Each structure stands twice: as C-alpha cells, then as structure tokens.
C-alpha cells in the first residue's frame, strides 16, 4: 500500500467514524448550553440506531419503497424517535426538578431496554435486526471526487457525514447569531436574568432538550445504517459517552465539539486500519485501540486545560428563587 492510499484510508475513516460523534456532541452542546446536563446521549443514540435500522428495513424491504429513499426515511425516524425519548428527560429535569444525572442514567437504561425488547419482539427472539439491505452508500460527486487524495479521502463519504458538517454550521449560526441562540445561552448561564427579561426558561430548555434528542437520534442512526448495517446491543456501545467527552473537550462549542469528534475519529481510523496499514507489526493492536483514549487524556491534561461548563448546567430553575 503506497502512501497516497494510506492517507486516503485514514482521512476517509476519520470522517466516517467521527460522524455519529459530531451529531450527538452537537446535541449535547445545545442541551448543556441551555443548562440541562444530558448523560442520556448514549440512550438517545441507541433508540436512534434502532429506529433507523427498523424503519429502513420496513420501508425498503417490506413496503418496497425505492432503495435510495429508505435510509433517508430511516434517519428521519431516528430523529423523531430521539426527540420523543428526550421528552421524559426534559420533564424530569425541567418540571420535576429532578437530578439530571440520575434522570439521564435512567434514560440510558430505559432506551437500551426498550430497543432490545422490541428487537426480540419484531425479529422473533433474535438478538439483532436482520441485515439492512438499503444502507447509505458513499456519494460520488462528479469531478470533485476525482481530485487526488482529497476527493476519495474527504469528499467520497456518506450523506450523513455531509449532514453532520452542515449541522455544525447551522448550530453555530443558531447559537451565536440568532436571538433564540442568545436566549438559549442566557438560560444556561443565568436563568434568573433571562427570566427577568421575559425569556421563558422552561420553553427554551424544553426546545433544547428535544432538539438534542433529535441530533443524538440521527447520530445513532448513522451507526446502524451507514457505518454498520444492523442494530444489536453493541451497536452504540459507548458512542454516547464519547460524544459527551467530545462536547466537554470542545468546550461546549459546536466547532470545538466537531474538532474533538474528528480527533476521536482519526484515532479510531488509525486503530481500525492498523492491520491494513501494517502498524501492528510495530506495536500491539491493543495499544492502537487504546491510543484515542490515551491521546485524549494527554491533550486535556497538557493543552486544553480547565473546561468550564455553562454556569447553570445541571441546576433546575425555580422561578423566584435566589
């Protein structure tokens, strides 16, 4: 394998493996910027991955809709289901003034339980869905895909990866350039001040938590119908927590979170393609697998330093309290 091919493999892998993390971390950013902690990203990704696989199978294989359309319907379903599952967390965190970490943990267990329960129910007791036939395929853009290295490395990717990068820009714009974004950040930093100025803390936080559910759902969907082609108990395995880490690593900023997710993606790509690239003859594969996590710790300890969460993150807001 020559150097150009190696570079292409690594670049492409970086984009693909970072996509679910970017999406879920964006959800985390919106969520925590509004002052609600969401440990439940993992669970939201799980139901998203489940819904995407099942709806893609149902629409493409059972209903016989066109094969290109089915995965898009799957992703939309993942988003909607993610939003629905975020609602109990929103109710608990915002109206019931519950401990948000506890509620998030409950959400993770609940979501994994519901998804696997339904898999067993729908697929006659099997531990996984059948293989999804109409998964996303990498897009081939005429001319652009022919650019050496960058074309096959960075541009020949799944549509969901394009979606992730577009959403980074959209959410950056929303958070920092629109009145709603200003309100959302105000509610997360100083809810009492926002309330005084007539912003409904409750409404803004509900919107943020539900949006976050949608994004994490899409992120989960990319795992089951782009990166792999079925849903089982290990499909999500820890991606939600990695997204959480990416969010903190990226200092609660959409672009920062994307950067952190790309970094994890790069490290994962190195680990996964270590065998192909011939790295395993120099270092044990376990070391390559542990590398992303070791590098993150080093980066956080040495370079990034203190991370400050939004001031009101994790604190329920009670009207009139001081």
């Amino acid at each position: 394998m020559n150097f150009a091919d190696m570079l292409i493999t690594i670049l492409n892998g970086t984009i693909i493996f970072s996509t679910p993390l970017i999406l879920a971390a964006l959800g985390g950013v919106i969520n925590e910027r509004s002052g609600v902690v969401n440990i439940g990203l993992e669970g939201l990704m799980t139901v998203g991955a489940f819904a995407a696989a099942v709806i893609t199978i149902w629409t493409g294989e059972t209903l016989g809709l066109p094969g290109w359309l089915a995965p898009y319907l799957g992703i939309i379903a993942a988003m909607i289901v993610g939003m629905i599952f975020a609602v109990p967390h929103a109710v608990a965190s915002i109206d019931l003034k519950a401990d948000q970490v506890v509620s998030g943990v409950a959400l993770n267990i609940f979501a994994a339980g519901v998804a696997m329960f339904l898999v067993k129910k729908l697929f006659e007791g099997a531990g996984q869905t059948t293989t999804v036939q109409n998964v996303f395929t990498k897009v081939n853009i005429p001319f652009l895909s022919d650019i050496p290295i960058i074309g096959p490395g960075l541009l020949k990717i799944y549509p969901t990866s394009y979606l992730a990068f577009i959403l980074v820009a959209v959410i950056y714009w929303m958070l920092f350039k629109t009145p709603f974004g200003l309100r959302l950040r105000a509610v997360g930093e100083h809810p009492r001040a926002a309330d005084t100025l007539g912003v409904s803390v409750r409404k803004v936080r509900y919107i943020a938590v539900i949006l976050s559910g949608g994004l994490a759902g899409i992120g989960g969907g990319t795992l089951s119908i782009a990166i792999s082609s079925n849903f089982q108990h290990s499909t999500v395995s820890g991606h939600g927590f990695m997204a959480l880490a990416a969010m903190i690593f990226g200092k609660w900023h959409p672009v920062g979170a994307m950067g952190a997710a790309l970094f994890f993606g790069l490290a994962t790509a190195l680990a996964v393609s270590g065998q192909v690239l011939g790295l395993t003859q120099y270092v044990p594969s376990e070391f390559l697998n542990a590398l992303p996590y070791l590098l993150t710790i080093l980066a956080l300890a040495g370079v990034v330093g203190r991370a400050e969460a939004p001031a009101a993150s994790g604190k329920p807001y009670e009207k009139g309290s001081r």
Partner: protein
Amino acid sequence: MISSMQTSRWNAILIPVLAVILGLIVGGLLMLLMGYNPIVGYSSVFQGIFGNMYFMGETLRAVTPLIFAGLAVAFAFRTGLFNIGVEGQFIIGQLAAAWVGAFWTLPTGLHAAVAILVAMIASGLYGGFAGWLKARLGVHEVITTIMLNYVALFAANWTIRTYLIGASERSKDILPSASLQAQWLSDLFEGARINWGLLLALIFALVCYWLLMKTTTGYELRAVGFNPHAAEYAGMNVSKNIFLSMLISGALAGIGGATDVLGVNGNMAISAGFTGIGFDGIAVALIGNNNPFGVIFGALLFGGLSFGADNMQRVEGIPTESIQIVISMVIYFVAAASVVNWLLGKFRRRQGVSQK
C-alpha cells in the same frame, strides 16, 4: 425540628420503596401492552431469585460485585465527583488479583488477602490518577474516567495475552490458596458460586458508612462535595480531598474486581467489551441514594431483578429487557423524588390540619 428530621429519614426509605412499586407497575403495564401476562412474568422472576437454594446463591453471587461498584460510585458522588470509571477500576482490580492469585505463592488465606490488597492499591491508584488530573490540572473527571475505562480494557487484554495467558483466551487459573470460595457455602447453596466476597462487601459497606459519617476525613470529603468553595474557606484542602475520594472509590471498585476473579471465575478472560458492572454501579448507587446501606438495597434489587429476569426469559419467553425497563423506571422515579416528596408533603399537611 425533630419531627422534620424524622420525616426526612422516613422519606429516605419511603421514596425508593414507592419508586420500586411504581417501577413494577409501569413494567407490568408494558408487559401487558406487549401481550405478556405480567403476573406470570413477575412470578417467574421471583422463582428465578428465590425458587431454590442454587438460584438464591447465584443471585447473591451476582449482587456481590454490584455492592462494590455501587459503593465506589456513591463514595465519589459524596465528594461531588461522578466516577464513570468504576468499570475500568473494576477491570484493573480483576487483573491485579488474577496476577497475584496465579503467580505468587503464599499460604492459604493470606494469599487471598494479599491479592485483594494489591488489587485495592492498583485500582485505587488508577482511580486516584483521574482525581489527580482533576485536582491538579482541572480536567473533567467524567471524560478522564470514560477514557480510562477503555485504556484499562485494552491494557488488561494485552497483559493477559502477553504475560498471564493460561488456557483459551483466559489468564492462568489462580492457585487454590488464593480462592475466596468455601466448599460448605457452595454446598449449602447447591453448588452456586456464592463466596466470601459477599461478606467482604457487607463489611466494606459498613466501613464506608463509618468513614463518611463518623470521621473527620469523611466530613471533609462530604463538605467538599456540598460546596468546595465553602470547604476551602474553612481551611480544607479541596485538591487533596478530590484525590482521596477517587483513590478510595477506585480501591472499592478494585476489591469488587478481585472478588470476581478470586471468588467466582478463578481467572480473567480476554474480553472484547466491558463487564458492565461498573456502569450498573451507577444505577445501584442512585437507587441507594448514595448511602452505603442504600447501596446494599440497590444492589439486591438490581442484581436480584436482573438475575431473576434470565429465568423469566428462559421459562416464559418474556424478554429480560422488560426487567431492565422496570429498573430504569425505578431510577427515574427516584430522580423525580420531588414529585413523590411533594405528594407526601401535601398528604402530611392535610393530616396535620385535620388533627388540629
């Protein structure tokens, strides 16, 4: 004043109990909705826990590591730290015990004690490392502990494969001198793998309670958890307490891992994924309201229901996940305790008024 303290103490017991009842009701409704009979389902869970001595012994075997994991999570929580890394610390404990148990030669009894001690130290330092990163460099413990989980998993796999390998992807079996199993105990429970680890778990729950509630160190740890700024103002060393809390939390997780190797499996397997016990510990601690005795209750509930669920799926064909959903509901209701509290408060006030 006294009566309000009594009320809060009552609520500490009442809320989890109500949460369990509500959780079981919601789970039952779900089973009904999916076309299963919840009474049949729950009674097969009950059978799977209490049906015979073997099931009871195996349930207690499953509960043992959960007590340690729950204690570890709860201990860190009390200092305001969220230790998601119990999973990794548990793995380090397993690894240390597997190494000492198989490769050191010591007299019976002492061997097990030394193996547990080494596991405690190794896992304590592993957890303490995350605490040090937080105290010294301000790195968020949630990220570092998540990352250290993966590092522990891969490091353990590599160590077993390179240095400890026995038969078929497992570490060499521990020597009988390091075993925590007791023949009479196993016989009593019809061959279940219940072992001395359970007794250790109960002892350490007591130790945790004593340490947190009855010593100056514990007072400082809790003060830092309540309000680090106030604690610092009062002259406490916040950094030291953060490190100490993670050190103890990690050590507790490590003993759990050690009892798993020395008491149950006798070796450690190379594993593609996590044991899940560390993550379950979070749920256990939350059900137990981060109180050491609450953790025992949480572990019995969590471990019992999860173990009994296998019987339900085997006998009645109802997926084990329905019990997982029940557990999540219990945690949700514990989290939303303010509602239960509020209801109880209203109820009490009305009673009080009518008595006057």
